[in-house]
């Protein structure tokens, strides 16, 4: 027992200082891109593995896997920044250039309903495990989402929100619908990662091509997978944490 106490002393206090200070991100981190539509080349459009760049040179962050291939072939039209506030309440705020997602206000009903306690049930529906793993990280002491009143619960019956990852594989569709129906209403749905928002790389696979074709979505969190800081910032905005 004494050993465990000593170990605790040696390992130290490790919970990060976000959100009071900005998150520490690696210098090669690819966040929200800066896009100049008129300068986006055809090559950039055609090299995109997920067809995220439209004819008029705008990027759909719901599809983007942040691989940076477009910026490499077209640096004058696209540049990835370290802006990590990517979570959006509407489709409009997923398009760049367009509405900046952090300018949107969250659903006021949610704050009223949940107060300072927000319970999430996660369902993986055809994901590759990366989204699940980096969401799980928020439960470690490095991020400790319990501080914000957010808790991951085992049953959908205890949940305020469903966090769905993956493109919704055909084989998971029924289980996802059942999980949603088991939640007390009103309930909220968060689509985490490119697959859940748009089907991502698996739009043309044996999937539903994203959560929206199955359930109504209240928040979209882009990324492949979303960095824990991206997910946490989005959740805090969703619950209007102050």
């Amino acid at each position: 027992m004494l050993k465990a106490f000593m170990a605790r002393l040696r390992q130290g206090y490790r919970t990060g200082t976000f959100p009071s200070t900005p998150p520490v991100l690696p210098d090669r981190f690819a966040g929200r891109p800066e896009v100049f539509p008129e300068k986006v080349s055809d090559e950039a459009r055609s090299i995109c593995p997920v067809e995220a760049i439209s004819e008029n040179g705008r990027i759909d962050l719901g599809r983007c896997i942040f691989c940076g291939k477009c910026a490499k072939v077209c640096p004058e039209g696209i540049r990835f920044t370290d802006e990590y506030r990517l979570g959006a309440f509407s489709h409009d705020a997923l398009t760049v250039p367009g509405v900046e997602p952090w300018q949107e206000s969250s659903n006021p009903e949610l704050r009223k309903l949940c107060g300072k306690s927000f319970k999430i049930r996660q369902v993986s529906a055809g994901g590759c495990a990366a989204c699940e793993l980096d969401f799980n990280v928020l439960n470690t002491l490095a991020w400790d989402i319990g501080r914000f009143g957010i808790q991951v619960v085992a049953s959908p019956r205890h949940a305020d929100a469903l966090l769905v990852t993956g493109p919704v594989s055909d084989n998971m569709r029924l289980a996802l619908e059942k999980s949603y129906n088991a939640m007390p209403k009103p309930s909220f749905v968060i689509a985490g990662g490119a697959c859940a928002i748009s089907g991502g790389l698996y739009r043309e696979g044996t999937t539903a091509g994203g959560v929206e074709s199955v359930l109504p979505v209240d928040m979209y969190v882009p990324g492949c997978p979303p960095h824990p800081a991206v997910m946490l910032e989005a959740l805090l905005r969703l619950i209007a944490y102050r």
Partner: protein
Amino acid sequence: MKNFLELKNCSAVKLNDLPVLPFADFRQTLIDSVGNENLRIAAFFPLQKSSDRYLCAVLVDAAHRCLRCALSGSGDKFPSLTPEAPAFHWFERELFERYNMEPYGHPWLKPIRKADGDYFTMEGDAVNEVAVGPVHAGVIEPGHFRFQCMGEKVYSLEISLGYQSRGVEKLLEGKFSSKTLPLFESAAGDTAAAAATGASSLIEALTGTQISQRASQIRAVMIELERVANHTGDLGALAGDVAYLPTASFCGRIRGEYLNMTAEICGNRFGRNCIMPGGVRYDIEPERCKKLLKHLERVNPELKHALDLMFDSPTVLDRFENTGSVSPETARSIGLVGTAGRASGLKMDLRHELPAGFYETAAPKQAPGGNGDVLSRAKVRYNEIFASLEFIGTTLQNLAEGSVYTPVSAPLQTDSIAFALTEAWRGELCQIMVTDAQGDIAQCRIVDPSFHNWFGLAMALRNEEISNFPICNKSFNLSYCGHDL
């Protein structure tokens, strides 16, 4: 085994160069070889060559440090290999489910990627059945588990998968494009570095591209960082499952440190979008290298401290020891690979047996095996972590000079097949690419280590307390998406 073609790992051959054997010879050779100490099955699948369909078998021949491959025209029905060589059982179920081929004599040709509602059941007044999933209590992937129990004791566990199936192999067919690597990387998202290295090797073999030593060193560093991060997470999770919270908490944080080192190299914590045909996209410049070494120097002792604390705790050891045992005989006969195989005393590690890339020059020390219980699987991870950390440190200190990218100029060789086997953190990952007459991708095959190992978990649970399922499961920590594809 002489009738099978000898191949180097990460190489390509023309489809016409593969020997086509009479089915009886093909079958007998496979039965005689698999289960032998130095031979194991890596892939077993139908291959389309012009208008004919053949069965293709790929074996790892550890004694001769090579791959072995041959084809055979089996027809749609053929006598199953499983009764004599159980390592084929999962492959044959796949053949039946996906290609309508019938290996008759197989004990149960149940689909592996679709829940068909048909489960093995036990009968009797005291029997109770426990069904779990596909949606599990934690933040993990979906799968269905059926336990047949009497009281607390599990007599049988049936694992029913397929919920993550999204058609990866099918989506890979067609032109080689900017989608190809991301699809390979996301086959199992926690194994991206190993998958991207293997997939890039396939393209390099099919185009005759030689990559620089520096690039192959960076790839190896990323694969080993991936191993360390995942093993750290697994050991922390094992601690959590026996309620030893200090190590669980420490490891949760420390795993993140290693993911952040990967992100330091390429911007993505899972190592995505970095390894590509021709080399790697990002260099580790001297400044970055220094920073990484410093980071390692700080975190490695913290990890060792956190893990030693757990392995020094009698209450933890009591729960791990003799729990969920898979004997070496069982492990060999069902074809376990990777950490689980090594923990059951099988000597196998592709980094030593079929080294490719930088592993031809150097490889982390092999971890000593064990007797197949949860403790062995934990200890193999522990030893692999520190062997890998030493390797990462040495490699970073000795990065070769030069560029990290060689342009891939040639088109894919036509009518060919390329093989890449990589020791990913869970075990051997086999990737195969077949090209057509136009040099497009006609077929891709991914055999994740979990494909071989899921049945091992079912075996580990036999005669075990159902309450030990979580630690048995964590000690394997297999991939659902890598299996389901």
